[in-house]
């Protein structure tokens, strides 16, 4: 649904000479239809530039952006102003913002009607559509209020209703929950998830909060210094040994209690979560296993458990028990030991 290839954005701080800042460095992104795709990264990683390049609010320096089969970069033209074709394409892409960006001079309903005014819809059609959308986001009773009278969460709901006014197939969410408290964040994310399911809306969101990815994303990408370091479906990422995203999505702590110990991260998914593997391991090899940390959580709608265990003896002494764990269909990461098989290939 959204594909970027070789997307590069270079900012020149001084017009002719001076420093150049590379915000995006050859980003290839592929968002499938109907999925919620999260791009996560720290401030300055280039997430914001990326999402702004998708609807060409920022002109990429090079590379292409294709949304719903339409090459937007080809529509962009040369000048800094957006031509008619690009503006039409943009009207089919919804966008929600961190700071909501609602017009304070308009009522909630008029805010939602704004994109419809731009599309040239009649007054009757506009108000029907706006009220329908406000109902969908649960704000039917606030139609005549002004944004200043709403709470942050309500404002974002208006923002979402407005983004949906043009019946978009794609919704871009630029840190939509970053200015909200945890409770409100959850309800907004739930709304996005519902819209994704009900309307078949493809959602591309950027965030710096791992919880956002954890609760609603089907796929995720990790951005660092303008590059996508890892990407894939959340399920695949969790099954990828050594995946930074998986570790961040689902951290387990715990330090080794001594030098001659082997620390192993065990990840359970689905079926394997029900097997009593640890006690089997202990009985079969007659070893004492200490559990350093463990957690069970739902990631991307999937039950996942992760456990950090400690085996006596160095890695060399534990090759057989670790092999046993692998045979049980578990994902095993030996902490602090780089096996050749642990190279981050699965992430590609």
């Amino acid at each position, binding site marked *: 649904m959204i594909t970027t290839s070789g997307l590069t954005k270079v900012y020149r701080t001084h017009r002719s000479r001076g420093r150049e800042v590379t915000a995006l460095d050859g980003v290839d992104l592929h968002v499938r239809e109907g999925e919620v795709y999260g791009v996560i990264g720290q401030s300055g990683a280039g997430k914001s530039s990326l999402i702004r390049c998708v609807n060409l609010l920022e002109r990429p320096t090079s590379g292409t952006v294709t949304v719903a089969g339409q090459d937007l970069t080809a529509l962009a033209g040369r000048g800094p102003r957006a031509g008619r074709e690009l503006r039409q394409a943009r009207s089919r892409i919804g*966008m929600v913002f961190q700071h909501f960006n609602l*017009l304070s001079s308009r009522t909630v309903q008029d805010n939602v009607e704004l*994109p419809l005014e731009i599309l040239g819809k009649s007054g009757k059609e506009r108000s029907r559509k706006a009220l329908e959308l406000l109902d969908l986001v649960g704000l039917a009773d606030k139609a005549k209020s*002004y944004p200043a009278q709403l709470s942050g969460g309500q404002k974002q709901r208006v923002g979402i209703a407005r983004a949906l006014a043009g019946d978009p197939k794609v919704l871009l969410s630029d840190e939509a929950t970053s200015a909200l408290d945890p409770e409100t964040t959850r309800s907004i994310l739930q709304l996005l998830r519902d819209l994704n399911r009900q309307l078949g809306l493809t959602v591309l969101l950027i965030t710096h909060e791992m919880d956002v990815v954890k609760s609603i994303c089907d796929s995720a990408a990790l951005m660092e210094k303008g590059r996508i370091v890892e990407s894939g479906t959340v399920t695949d990422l969790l099954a990828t040994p050594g995946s930074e995203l998986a570790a961040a999505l689902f951290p387990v702590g715990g330090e080794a209690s001594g030098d001659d110990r082997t620390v192993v991260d065990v990840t359970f998914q689905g079926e394997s979560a029900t097997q009593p593997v640890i006690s089997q391991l202990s009985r079969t090899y007659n070893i004492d296993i200490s559990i350093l940390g463990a957690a069970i959580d739902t990631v991307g709608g999937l039950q996942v458990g992760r456990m950090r265990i400690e085996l006596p003896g160095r890695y060399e002494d534990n090759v057989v028990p670790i092999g046993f764990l692998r045979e049980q269909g578990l994902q095993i990461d030996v902490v602090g030991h780089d096996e050749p098989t642990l190279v981050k290939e699965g992430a590609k």
Partner: protein
Amino acid sequence: MTWSEMQPLLEQACTETLVMVGWSTLIAVVGGLPLGILLVLTDKGGLLQNTVVNKVIGQIVNIGRSLPFIILMVALMNFTRWVTGTTIGSEAAIVPLAIGGIPFFARLVETAVREVDHGLVEAVQAMGGNTWTIVRKVLVPEALPSLIASTTTTVIALIGYSAMAGTVGGGGLGDLAVRYGYQRFETGLMWITVAILAVVISLIQFAGDFAARALHRRGARSGPGPKLRLLKGEEPATAEVGKAA
């Protein structure tokens, strides 16, 4: 000088001032608004970035702003004669007043429009809005409270300028004060003129502030719009709501 002597003089002077200031404000707003918006749009990073146009308008506005009004008025004499056929009287005074008011208002518009959150512009761009839509639906409505405040400032400045125009034959309250108060030592009439000016300016300032605040606070209070409480008794309940919001 008795009141019956003063009254017709004052009435005529008030009408002249009203005509001069009214027309010149109208022209200043009509001319200054697009100029001020253009200054923002053509600036570096603006929607219609154009350094040449920006520099040219900026320079014109600066020159217009930096000339003392009395000099501008004299400098424009030929132009005034070309437009109105005369350089004397309140109609002729409208020309330099309007031309002095345009750059004055344009700078105020520029400041007001610049303060509109860029996120709003971006949001409308993301909806597929063009520059004209952004100007009409975002920049002007969002800056409206400031624009009204700017208009108030412009009206008051133009009343001041109109007094200068009065001294060179423009008529109006300024003219009256100078002719009778300064040249004929009719101190009574001068003080009445001063009082009228003070009251008029206070009223304009009050009305402008009221309108700007009413727009600005829109939605910030839960009740209906602000009420003019001078006319009715105190309404402590509404006042409380206003403060809380």
